[in-house]
């Protein structure tokens, strides 16, 4: 059962998310676009109206992908932290993102147009993330030490990076440029037509996660205890990891690699809600992750006249001190 305080917290987060989303839509001072224009851009779109084009092609997709990427990466981080019982696990640290990156690089640098299409990139990112996720799971069965697992993750990340570098060396300059730019991370590459696909995939993955809440709660107690509670640990660990990898793959395909969200937000949620109930944590991660990335993007837009900072760099700037704080708190 959730405490009253947590209900209040959720209420506050929902209100904050709505306010921040509104502000995100109107914050840019490049063009003044009202909320009515945004509404009309969706329901009464006129291609000849500049405001409609701006809202439909820039503001709305940017907001939606910020919400989905923040929520998705946070949930993905929560899932990996639970199955590896390690608060420093996340798709980035474990090399899952590197797997997605390697697969996308292979596709983009191959020159095959089918692999360079949106669907091609999503499929490749998901496959790459899942393969590296399963590799991590495989190695985890031999390793008892959490630190060793993290090192294996870092090694997988380096391995993926090295193969990508070799692929780049053998590719055409145009392909290399496309891949390198994708690798810097961006919330502005998504267009309006892709939103339905992204949102439906995200909702489906979150819906699937709901079926694994019981397993996630049991896994906190350890594998032996979970089995005693009737959980099919091996099967469910694979399913959870596939979900985490698919979420990371989906986000990575559309935004490039975004660091620290998957690591910092699940820890922040545990600190805020003081619970191990994964239903509460799932909702909390969706809300806090979305809020975090929307705030990051608002700040980026506010300072863009002075300095342009890529989203990946910005999340790292904010996330790194928080992760150091977690490490000090846990191991001091």
């Amino acid at each position, binding site marked *: 059962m959730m405490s009253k305080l947590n209900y209040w917290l959720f209420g506050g987060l929902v209100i904050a998310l709505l306010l921040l989303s509104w502000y995100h839509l109107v914050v*840019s001072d*490049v*063009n003044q676009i009202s909320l009515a224009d945004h509404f009309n851009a969706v329901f009464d779109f006129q291609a000849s109206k*500049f405001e409609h*084009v*701006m809202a439909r*092609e*820039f503001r709305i997709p940017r907001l939606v992908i910020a919400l989905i990427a923040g929520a998705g990466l946070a949930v993905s981080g929560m899932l990996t932290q639970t199955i590896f019982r390690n608060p420093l696990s996340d798709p980035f640290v474990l090399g899952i993102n590197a797997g997605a990156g390697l697969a996308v690089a292979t596709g983009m640098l191959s020159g095959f*147009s089918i692999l*360079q299409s949106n669907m091609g990139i999503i499929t490749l990112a998901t496959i790459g993330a899942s393969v590296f996720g399963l590799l991590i799971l495989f190695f985890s069965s031999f390793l008892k030490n959490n630190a060793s697992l993290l090192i294996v993750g870092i090694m997988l990340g380096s391995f993926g990076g090295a193969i990508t570098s070799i692929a780049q060396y053998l590719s055409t*300059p*145009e392909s290399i*440029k*496309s891949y390198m*730019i994708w690798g*810097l*991370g*961006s*919330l*502005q*590459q998504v*267009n309006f037509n892709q939103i339905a696909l992204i949102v439906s995939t995200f909702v489906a993955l979150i819906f699937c996660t709901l079926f694994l809440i019981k397993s996630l709660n049991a896994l906190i107690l350890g594998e032996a205890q979970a089995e005693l509670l009737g959980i099919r640990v091996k099967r469910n660990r694979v399913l959870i990891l596939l979900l985490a990898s698919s979420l990371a793959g989906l986000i990575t395909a559309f935004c490039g690699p975004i660091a620290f969200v998957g690591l910092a937000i699940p820890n922040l949620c545990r600190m805020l809600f003081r619970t191990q109930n994964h239903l509460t944590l799932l909702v909390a991660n969706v809300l806090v992750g979305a809020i975090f990335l929307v705030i990051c993007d608002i700040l980026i837009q506010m300072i*863009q006249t002075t300095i*342009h900072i*890529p*989203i990946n760099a910005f999340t790292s700037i904010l996330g790194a001190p928080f992760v150091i704080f977690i490490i000090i708190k846990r191991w001091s």
Partner: protein
Amino acid sequence: MKPKLSLLVCLLLIVASCQNKKPKKEVEKEDVSANLLQYAKNLRIFDYGSIVKIEIINQEKGAVIFATELVREKRLGNSNSINVPIKKMAALSATQVGMLGKLKAYKHLSATIDKKYIYDKDLKHFIQLKKIHELATETGVSTEQLIASGSKFVLYDDFGTGFTDEDKLKQLGITCIPVGDWQEQHPLGKAEWILLYGYLTGKEKEAKAIFLMIEKNYNKLKEIAKKQKRKPSLISGNLITDIWYAPAKNSYNARLFADAGGKYVYANETSSKPSIEKSMEQILSENKKTEIWINPGFSSKKAIKLHAQKTSLLHPFKTGKVYCYSHNMNLFWERSAIEPHFVLEDLIRIMHPKALPKGKFHFYKKVK
């Protein structure tokens, strides 16, 4: 000790007084007026007959970063001088290769970049015959490979940080020469660097003749563009992640666009860097009616869309007036610096299709 100390002080005073006899400013003033170069800002050449003084300048540092005296063969120079023509040099950029190619001076070349970045067939042939060593790209050149090539001089693009292992190479008698042609703002300034290659290879007469021809053709084309009444609006650059980098005022490209008779949208926007930065929203709102898009960095519309879908909202993308040299980048990087009149000709053909007699593009192509 005391007599020794006073002797030392006396010597220092004598040296100082000798130096004071020739005020430094006067020397600089005289030198600058004798500079052979008219357009280049990063290179000075002073031809005193038997000795030729070379100075390479880095504008950002505001300093001369390389200075030497070229001594024609069989004369004795000081320890800093170079006997010319030099025979074994490594050229580590496509532009340098292009300059040497224009002078037909490949026999002075001992090593160069990876042949996948080379356009010139003759040079590729020499590399295949192993008459010229093939090194990796400039940033990834192996020092050992460079030494093994027998090169005595290394020409490298000056990014303000010197060449890797420059000090070690110096100990082995290998001189590293920074080349700052890429920082020149005037297209003719970039081309004028051919004089450096001319003096280094003993082909200064040919270099001067080539440059005079380039200058004449460039200015002739510029006059034709000047006479055009209508100046089409244009934008340049592309998105890199979420930032659009466009040439700033006083940049090499902005100059070319102006000389070609175009109305470059950001012609008056200054920056401490050669480019200005814009968000895609800014670009779209400031270019609602811009007619031409130059240098998107890709050779097909498909590649542009794959790289940044939202650029397809630009007016020129819809009307098809997008032009780039990306279909043959090696050709462009090798020849554009030494053939700025051809670059200008292409741009005039793009902006004023009827201003010149029918002909083909040298570097550019319509992006389809």
